[in-house]
């Protein structure tokens, strides 16, 4: 069982039936992918590329037109496959009349949990996602970031081995987004497999072990992140406190070496806007 992939998608094709006005629509075409147990796999692609359809097929919410999907070896069409999976949909909404705590207990109860085990697990998830102070507030009053974190908490309530996250940081501010990113990294450290889609490529780069790039319902690239983004014939060197003289010496050395070697770019590396935002907003909190 150790070699059983967490997610297996084989030759998945999904065609949505047309109407009298609109013809049939092929959302996914002959897609195959495997997510190994314990890794963070990023599925990226433009809107309409078939990511959400693929996720729904993996979760058994949609029936494949052709091909099949499984979770830890159990076909997604079987309800029992969902014992091992937690799902956070894009922009989730929960029953507004329930409080955060009631919501988690509701989902835990659906998974067959009860009594002290359910109560303790709900509290644990509230603490993990930083919602303990909002536990008694009705979900209708939650911000978008809080809803996303509650979504993560409900996805984790039954201690699944696989997490499927559809745009987990959509509409969340950078601080909330960073918090979710840190949670995903924490899941990997705890051995939870994560399948995630996002448009925030920089964040995906930070958390994913492997990525698959989808376009027009097909997988166009797939592999380990380092392999995909490395530029084979270029080398990056970052120096700290380098004097102008040292930089001149390096330039001279490269020029003397010849053989096609040349410096393409030299200058101060830039921080990201996200890091700048987080530093600036954290500084403003300091007294």
């Amino acid at each position, binding site marked *: 069982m150790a070699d059983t992939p967490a997610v297996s998608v084989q030759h998945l094709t999904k065609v949505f039936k047309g109407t009298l006005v609109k013809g049939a629509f092929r959302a996914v075409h002959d897609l195959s992918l495997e997510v190994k147990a314990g890794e963070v796999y990023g599925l990226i692609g433009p809107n309409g590329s078939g990511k959400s359809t693929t996720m729904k097929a993996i*979760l*058994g919410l949609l029936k494949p037109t052709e*091909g099949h999907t499984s979770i830890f070896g*159990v076909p997604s069409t*079987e*309800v029992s496959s969902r014992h091992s999976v*937690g799902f956070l949909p894009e922009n989730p909404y929960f029953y507004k009349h329930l409080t955060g705590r009631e919501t988690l207990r*509701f989902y835990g109860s659906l998974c*067959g949990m009860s009594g002290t085990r359910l109560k303790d697990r709900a509290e644990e998830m509230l603490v993990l996602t930083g919602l303990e102070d909002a536990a008694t507030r009705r979900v209708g009053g939650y911000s978008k970031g809080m809803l996303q974190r509650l979504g993560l908490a409900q996805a984790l309530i039954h201690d699944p081995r696989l997490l499927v996250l559809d745009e987990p940081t959509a509409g969340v501010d950078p601080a909330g987004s960073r918090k979710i990113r840190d949670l995903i990294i924490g899941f990997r450290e705890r051995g939870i497999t994560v399948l995630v889609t996002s448009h925030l490529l920089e964040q995906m780069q930070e958390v994913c072990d492997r990525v698959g790039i989808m376009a027009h319902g097909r997988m166009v690239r797939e592999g380990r992140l380092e392999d995909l983004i490395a530029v084979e014939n270029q080398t990056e060197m970052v120096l700290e406190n380098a004097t102008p003289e040292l930089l001149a010496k390096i330039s001279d050395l490269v020029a003397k070496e010849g053989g096609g070697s040349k410096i393409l770019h030299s200058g101060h590396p830039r921080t990201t806007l996200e890091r700048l935002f987080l530093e600036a907003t954290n500084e403003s909190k300091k007294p």
Partner: protein
Amino acid sequence: MSEPTTSSAANGAAKVRFSPRRVWTLALATMTQLIRMKILAFLVVFCLLAAGAGFAFSVINPEQQLNLLKSVTLGALQIFSIVIGVVSTALLLPKDMEDRTLYTILSKPVPRFDYLLGKLLGVLMLIGGGLIVMDAVLSLILWMRQSMLFEDAVAHMRLEKMDSPEAVAQVREIVARQGLTWNLHWAVWAIFLKATVVTTVALLLSSIASSTLFTIVITFCVTIIGHGESLIREFFFQPYLSSTMGRAASFILAAIVPDLAQFDIVDSVVSGEIVPWGVVYDMTGIAALYVTVYLFVTHLLFVEKEL
């Protein structure tokens, strides 16, 4: 299509079976949702107003007064239990889909049948709870009213010097027959059964419809047609009166639309007739049959639904 992956049993994953506890969780959440939407309060306030209206009209004798009170209140209960059943059911399922709450529920080990049954049970618990409260309130009002009317009638007869033991016994018998009897509870039970059948029809329609309005309109059409089902059947069994097309349409309607007239005992109860146990058993059995068939069809449709 080949299926190279192993089944859950072969893989050690426990099969997910029907779970009354899971259904109860879903039903409780649905009922809480509706209660916090103040739907039950609306039902209670309306029916109390209707009960008040039962006192408002001028009438000739105690029998008429009690008749009017029962007629207005039971009529209001009938209309509002159906309206609440249809509107709640038509709203809840599409709302769960629109808000993606359905995704988070069905991505847990929850069979779709459990979800459907939980939703239906939640709505029925709300209607049932409301009807029990209203039954208790109506019983109390009716009992108070019949006591007052009897005392008034006897006082009036005493003034007129017509209070012979026979006359008083006759008034007592009339007031008792028209007042609080078990028949009132059977009428409320019949209202609940009718609302249950109509709510199940609404659930069936909302599992295939793409809009709430469509579900509401079609369910009300089915409800109206369902009250005239016997007329349709009569039409169907008189071949010399209709064309083949007409007969076919009548047959289809008679086959798919519930015969709601089976639950119409309110008029008998209002007029003080005794409802036999056999009628209660029949009504309950017919309702159970309709609910089972409609729920089965709903499951067949919903299990294939692409979310």
